């Protein structure tokens, strides 16, 4: 899933300063699972905003709404009857959702209430770890299912480097060395020959905006344009 963390209250407050009516928009998918921007978090943020307004001579108004997925126009459409009442939208979705919301309602300023951090896994409630950088050229088959791009601090394709420190990465004792793990896993599977070969330079496909059309959907896209 995509993992995000809420911005500090002070930063959020500063962004929406001067707007009289703000709709806090949550997303019911990834950011709800990672406890950053689902219905519950929308409620908490809206309550905090209302509270901080107390005693103000000219208080702002805050509304709440959570759609199932902000990265899907169909769900964003559900807001069309209420957004007109607001002069700003405060999105708690990932960066993709925030942009899609802004694209759907281009007349209204949209602000991010979270920082989108990574594609990761649920280690435990409230505990997430990054696993994928969406580089676009997956090598997990060669590396025993451990991503060198994400898990190695230098994104090495031919590790481990000389900094490996008692199974930890040179950057931090608490960060396991990805290449040490790759080595151990492949050794156990009897597949070390995978990394005896030199891996060629990666094709970094994630450095420009990308579009993907699954096979069979080309015509549909053409018709929409």
């Amino acid at each position, binding site marked *: 899933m995509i993992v995000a963390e809420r911005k500090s209250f002070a930063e959020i407050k500063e962004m929406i300063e001067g707007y009289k009516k703000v709709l806090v928009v949550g997303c019911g998918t990834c950011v709800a699972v990672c406890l950053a921007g689902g219905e519950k978090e929308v409620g908490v943020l809206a309550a905090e905003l209302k509270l901080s307004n107390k005693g103000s001579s000219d208080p702002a108004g805050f509304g709440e709404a959570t759609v199932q997925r902000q990265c899907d126009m169909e769900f964003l459409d559900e807001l069309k009857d209420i957004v007109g009442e607001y002069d700003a939208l405060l999105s708690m979705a990932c960066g993709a959702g925030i942009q899609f919301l802004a694209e759907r309602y281009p007349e209204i300023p949209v602000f991010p209430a979270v920082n989108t951090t990574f594609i990761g896994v649920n280690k435990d409630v409230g505990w997430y770890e990054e696993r994928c950088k969406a580089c676009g050229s997956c090598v997990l088959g060669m590396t025993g299912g451990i991503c060198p791009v994400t898990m190695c601090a*230098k*994104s090495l394709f031919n*590790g481990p*480097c000389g*900094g490996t*420190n008692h199974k930890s990465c040179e950057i931090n004792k608490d960060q396991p060395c990805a290449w040490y793990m790759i080595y151990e896993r492949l050794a156990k599977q009897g597949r070390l020959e995978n990394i*005896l070969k*030199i891996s060629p*330079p*990666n094709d970094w496909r994630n450095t420009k905006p990308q579009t993907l059309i699954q096979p069979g959907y080309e015509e549909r896209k053409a018709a929409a344009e």
Partner: protein
Amino acid sequence: MKSGSQLEKILTAGHFAFTGELGPPRGANVEAIKKKAAPLKDMVDSVNITDNQTAVVRMSSWAASLFAIAEGLEPNFQMVCRDRNRLAMQGDILGAYAHGIRNMLCLSGDHQQFGDHPQSKGVFDIDSMQLITMVKDMRDEGKFLNGQEIDDPPKMFIGAAANPFAEPFDWRVYRLAKKVQAGADFIQTQCVFNMERMREWVKQANDMGLTEKVYILAGVTPMKSLGMARYMKSKVPGMDVPDYIIDRLKGVDKKEQANEGIKIACEQIEEFKEMKGVAGVHLMAIEWEHKVPEIAERAGVLPRPKV
């Protein structure tokens, strides 16, 4: 000859190579380079010019390499993968070669988190292994990484690093084999303190036939003090400082520690001269350049052969 560098000539002639190191200044201070360069002249065959070492901004390694040439030294131009993408790297290699630089050391580089700009974006477009192959193909095939032809290809003598001491130990000789396969002509190792481990690694390299294909220069760093030894043992990743080194420094008077450190280094160099599979020593006298003549003298590597 692949590049015709002094270092290549020394090694191919079968002489025991002796190389040094010079860290460029944290500023445009040319006098500082000259000051560090002076004691190295005629003491070493080639001088590694570090590239934003420890991820701290310094004068660029190619520029400092040119000043080294002007001071009568032969530079070993270091290049890390942290700060440039493949375009910038190839551009710098062309420029460095055009200016007379003939040796290169291909490194991954320390992570930027340790340096003076920890918020920076680490590039790591290619890794050190891929860099070695890139420089080799530029030289031998006359081609850029994308396969296109180079008008007057740069011919570098290609160096790489090896750390025989980092985990997983069993893998280290295979990583060396990969660097040889990638195209490394010479290897400079991490600072050696653990001689048992070093002997074992060199033996493995001999047994695999690697030392017939690549020149191994053993990294030697004289300890300046007990404090430095302790720091290297506990704080520097990938450094293997056995207790007996600490004990030897502890065993002498504080004023004698530097001398004892040089003594240990010289004993190591003596052993390396005799060690099958070791073709030379790379002396990393960190911020101790002025001591190099004394160390070279005491290690019995003078005068340097003229080739």
